[in-house]
């Protein structure tokens, strides 16, 4: 008997048929599946999601790639700041670089947050942080298209205030 399939339906009607283990990379979906069938999935199901098709496609791609990877469980006893950041693989780098070029990186991070896919969220945040590293304020504004809402006086005051950090 074939294993039940999970169909993820995007907000714009696009469907993605995936294995259960791929879908269950998302804690939110996993909970939904468990809620639907306490004794395990016995039939195919459709799960409507509030994510655009193009974004969901990338999320599914990530989940497919890591469907067999066992990520370390977060240690509840460990203080959050002491936990190590996730290691970015070459594949992750390429994946997010492409997403950035396609203007989808932040949507994927939001989707990871929405679907509770911790590893994808962490990798996304790490990627954005890596893009910021070593850049000046002006370069960051330009890279991420963020307007400056400080007055020159405010900016000067902050610079003075933060001198001790250097």
């Amino acid at each position, binding site marked *: 008997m074939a294993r039940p399939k999970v169909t993820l339906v995007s907000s714009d009607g696009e469907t993605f048929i995936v294995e259960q283990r791929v879908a269950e990379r998302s804690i939110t979906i*996993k909970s939904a599946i468990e809620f639907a069938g306490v004794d395990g999935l016995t039939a195919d199901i459709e799960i409507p999601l509030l994510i655009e098709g193009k974004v969901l496609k990338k999320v599914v791609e990530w989940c497919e790639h890591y469907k067999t990877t066992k990520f370390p469980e977060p240690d509840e006893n460990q203080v959050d700041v002491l936990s190590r950041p996730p290691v970015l693989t070459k594949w992750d780098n390429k994946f997010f670089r492409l997403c950035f070029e396609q203007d989808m990186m932040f949507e994927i991070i939001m989707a990871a947050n929405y679907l509770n896919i911790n590893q994808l969220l962490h990798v996304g945040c790490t990627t954005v942080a890596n893009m910021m*590293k070593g850049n000046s*304020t002006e370069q960051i504004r330009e890279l991420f298209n963020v307007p400056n809402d400080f007055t020159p006086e405010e900016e000067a005051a902050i610079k003075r205030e933060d001198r001790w950090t250097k």
Partner: protein
Amino acid sequence: MVCSVLQKLQDFMVGPCTTKEVTCLNSSASLPEIASSLESLPDEILSQIIDHLNQLDVVDLSLVNSRLYSLCMNKLYKRKLYFVPRGRTIIHRKLNTFTHTNFTIVNDCTFPQRGNFKESVIIWTIDYLQSNIDIYNKLEGLDQMTFEKFSLLHLRLNREPSYDFVDQIKKMANKLGHIRNVELLLDEPNIRAIHDLQGIFTGVRCLALRIYTKEQFPLHSILPLFCPEKIQEIQIDTDRCLHENLINLIKLFPNIETLIVNSISPVLSNESLEPLSNTRLQKFSLFVDHEYAITMVDYYIGLVKDLLNQCGSTLQLVRFGMYPTTFLEVDLFCGPKKIDYKEVKQDIRNLVYWVKERLHEYPRLSYFTFYNYSFFIDRQVEPCEWIEISGWEL
């Protein structure tokens, strides 16, 4: 079937999930916002991103706009401070080590003049303070701040804590319950003062003891300061022997997982090691500092081996280290920090070949140390390649 499942799943059609727990939200939950720019990310995600940056990058990011400024200040001032009054820590844009990204490094003795620590999560250490006066002043300063959410994780008490200082600690006892790591320097006056601190460090998991007593120090005498069942890691530095032998030491702390003993003198030879069972010990490290250490390798490893045998198969030797002989030690301590390899060549050669011959006995042995230098053991290559010294063949 699909219909009924869909009906059930209506509750799972959710908006942006802001917590890590799965949250059942009703179907009227809002759609996830389209996040096509950095600015559209919610604060909690931006904060996660900022957590990966060192303080110099955080400062640059804080100047981008007012919202990022607010989030960046949260990291700079309200979390993870690291005070290094002596011995400046390098802060560099390209340094993204664990410390640099997780802590704001303050390279002086004064607090930043913001006084806004009320939501502080962690001040990592009141550390590297060379006298109790410094500590006293620091604690006094800290005491003036609001501590509701303040969690001090690491505390180092240095030599000569005065009774005033102990009083100060006692006054702050209710604020010190979060301390997980304590480093204590124990000499005679210090021990007398510290005994007044009973029951204060009950949350401690990791304990470092620097023992400078003239006589054997009974470790069990300071147990009332802690909750021994909670302690998982102990590091002991002493140039004397302990009152307890290693096995008894492990027994005092039933949940100990890591035991590191530095500089223990060879006084264990006549002690009978009692059988040890049910230990959780997973890592044991013995670092020898003795004038004849280099000639007593087999003796020391015998001690370790006895302990390994007693502790069962889960405990395995992963490191063996030693200082050079006294003569060389003097040179090394007084001179530049680099080892003069010509001076210690024979010692290292002995050690390397001693290690090589015993590799099969210790499958987990992966590095050894000489003085403060660690050398990785690559079992695939000859020992002469373990240490990179040009023109020098072992």
